[in-house]
């Protein structure tokens, strides 16, 4: 299979192929950004906290998954009758749940006491959390990066002119499932409660909704989403070697996504995620070579931030964000 593909590539990429490849990898990248952005926006909407520890939580989740799947094979070893893919998915789910518990603990210990404190202080708390969690995660990962042990490996399939890794398809599918899940959640009893709290905290409390419980739930779901993104960003071809000490920095690439979409808009997070993913991918594919060398090193990485600046100049609250009504 690889040999045949190599032969097909020998003539170099034609324009359609190049566009298809850039698009497909942009969508896969955008799906991960969307997951990250979704978690960030969820936490922001419910608690008005921008979580700078998101990347560290994502890396921790990815480490949990790698450890569960490759080192102790939990819970797969109690369910050997299941196919390998199912076993891995179970491990990943357990890892996501564990990370959600971490999110709960963080909220209770570090965020809850800060309710009502200035924005600046809460941002700093999450930055400090990032420092602590990232350091501990890097120590847990140890001397070598940890492969995820996923069942798809380096397999690729051809979809039209594009060569797509199976992991990329899995990423997009998981993102779609998660989006549907979140949409359904918002229609559920707790989801409505969360929306109500986000809209008007005091009115919601007057209706008997426990704001504390809503905060906890938002952090748990946010952490779970971060873990999912962390796991899928540590797969072939993005990071074939698995989770490493640089995984945590990945989330900073999703920050422009939430600003472009608007900090408090779920739709905005998803749209922003895909915009950033595609912008980065197209910038990488087309703004390279001699003619573009004046753009310097690693331009595709700052592309999202430049897009963000432009969007903010036109719409200071993002594409879908609600404009803040300021009273004197």
């Amino acid at each position, binding site marked *: 299979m690889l040999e045949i*593909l190599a032969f097909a590539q020998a003539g170099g990429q034609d324009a359609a192929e190049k566009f298809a490849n850039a698009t497909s990898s942009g969508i896969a990248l955008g799906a991960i950004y969307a997951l990250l952005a979704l978690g960030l926006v969820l936490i922001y909407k419910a608690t008005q906290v921008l979580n700078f520890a998101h990347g560290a939580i994502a890396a921790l989740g990815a480490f949990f998954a790698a450890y569960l799947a490759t080192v102790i094979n939990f819970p797969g070893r109690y369910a050997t009758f299941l196919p390998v893919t199912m076993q891995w998915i179970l491990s990943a789910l357990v890892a996501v749940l564990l990370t959600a518990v971490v999110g709960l603990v963080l909220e209770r210990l570090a965020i809850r006491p800060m309710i009502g404190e200035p924005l600046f202080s809460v941002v700093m708390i999450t930055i400090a959390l990032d420092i602590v969690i990232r350091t501990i995660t890097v120590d847990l990962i140890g001397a070598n*990066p940890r*492969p995820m042990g996923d069942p798809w490996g380096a397999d690729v399939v051809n979809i039209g002119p594009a060569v797509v890794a199976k992991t990329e398809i899995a990423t997009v599918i998981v993102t779609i499932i998660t989006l549907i899940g979140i949409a359904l959640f918002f229609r559920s009893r707790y989801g409505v409660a969360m929306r109500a709290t986000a809209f008007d905290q005091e009115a919601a409390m007057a209706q008997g909704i426990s704001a504390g419980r809503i905060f906890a739930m938002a952090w748990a779901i946010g952490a779970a989403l971060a873990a999912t993104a962390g796991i899928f960003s540590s797969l072939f*071809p993005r990071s074939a070697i698995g989770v*490493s000490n640089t995984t945590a920095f990945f989330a900073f690439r999703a920050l422009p996504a939430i600003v472009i979409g608007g900090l408090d808009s779920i739709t905005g997070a998803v749209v922003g995620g895909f915009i950033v993913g595609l912008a980065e991918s197209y910038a990488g594919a087309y703004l390279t070579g001699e003619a573009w060398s004046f753009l310097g090193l690693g331009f595709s990485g700052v592309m999202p931030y430049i897009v963000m600046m432009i969007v903010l100049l036109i719409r200071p609250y993002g594409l879908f964000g609600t404009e803040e009504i300021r009273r004197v």
Partner: protein
Amino acid sequence: MKKLRIFALVLVLALIAAACGSDGEETTTTAAESGTEETTTTAAPEEGGTEETTTTAAPEAPAEIKVDFGVDNDAMTITLGQTADLTGPFSPLVKPIIAGQQMYWGWLNANGGMQGYEVIMETRDTAYTVEGHIAAYDEIRDKVVAISHTTGTPQTLAIGDALEEDHMIAVPATWYSGWTDTNVLPNVLHTGAPYCLEAMSLLDWMAQEEADAGNDAPTLAVASIPGDFGLDSMAGALKWAEINGVEVVHDGSGTIVPGQDLKPVADAIVASGADLVYVTTTPSTFSEVYGNALQQGFEAKWSGAGPTYNPAFLGSPIADAIQRDWYGGFYMQPWGGDSAGMALIMQLVEGSGADIPANDYVGLGVIEAMLVHAALEAAYASGDMTREGVYNAIYSLDDVDFQGAAPNENYVGSTADQIQRAITLWRPSVANLEAGGSGSEIVESNFVGPTAESFEFTEACYQL
């Protein structure tokens, strides 16, 4: 009332002063205590470890030994400093290196110490930042006789003036070709073949394999991270292409920026259709470049500077492909080599009981320690264990022997005399990994490619 307030103010100031003062005193006494607390018995060295040194005579009376910083003739201790990245991006590599040093010095101390001196390590974290490195060095510079490990080239250059001022030797964990250049900071010792000559030897090997397979005119694509690590390596690869008349179909020197989407780098390599690819970067960024190229079905002979590779590749989805594509080189024998030095390293790791993976970097730590040990022995033999004495001692050694774990080193003569060209060639092997090795099957030890052999090395390949 007013008097009271002034009194209160004075009291507070006095309290603060007292608190600060006692804090500082505690600090200094702690350091002194840890320096003197374990005066071991001054037994003669027993076995193995001291064979590579110039003198194996019985210990003389230490009173004749001239000392200044870091060597204590009363407590019989030698203090060595390490400015190491324990929390930054290279901490996964540096922690095993420091562990290797710990094992070596611990073993030496248990066997009578360095001529009766107990060796103490003062390790400080630099977080791989220039600022952190300078602060770490400033803190330990008056306590130590030598720096047995320093992480990072720009960071080490940043303490260059201070090293020179202190006549301190330092062993870098980088293989920048400038370290051999006697005009660039001689205080920093070279170990192993530099990145640029390594690139030449590896490409010689890969081109030979390619020729054996019937392709006499291979094309080359290169890519690297910025900085001396990537660019010194690239300088070697591009020079190799120039000397051998090989067409460079893609030059991506410095284009791999960590933390960014690296698909464009992979795309450029794939589009070039090169037969040989030389990529020097960190393992995680390499896996992203290689993974993206592999996704598009690209097949070529891949190689890169030693630290680009990581044994974890063999447990990852790219294991099969990397087994097929990767041509590895390293400055020392990989794990499980057949030399006496490697046997010592394996024995140390087993004896320590530490839970560390089979990792070549532990061995590197031992090599660094052996080099400093040789310098200390030579300084002891000359009766001058001041920093300057140690500095002069290492530059009097023309054959530092690592018992086969790494090629012997020469520190006498011109840049061209001192240059190390030999590397160990190996191929990745899952079978080897499963048999308990590090997954590196040795192809040839002490290999010097024809281009690397004939290359006239007079100055650093890449100027910082």
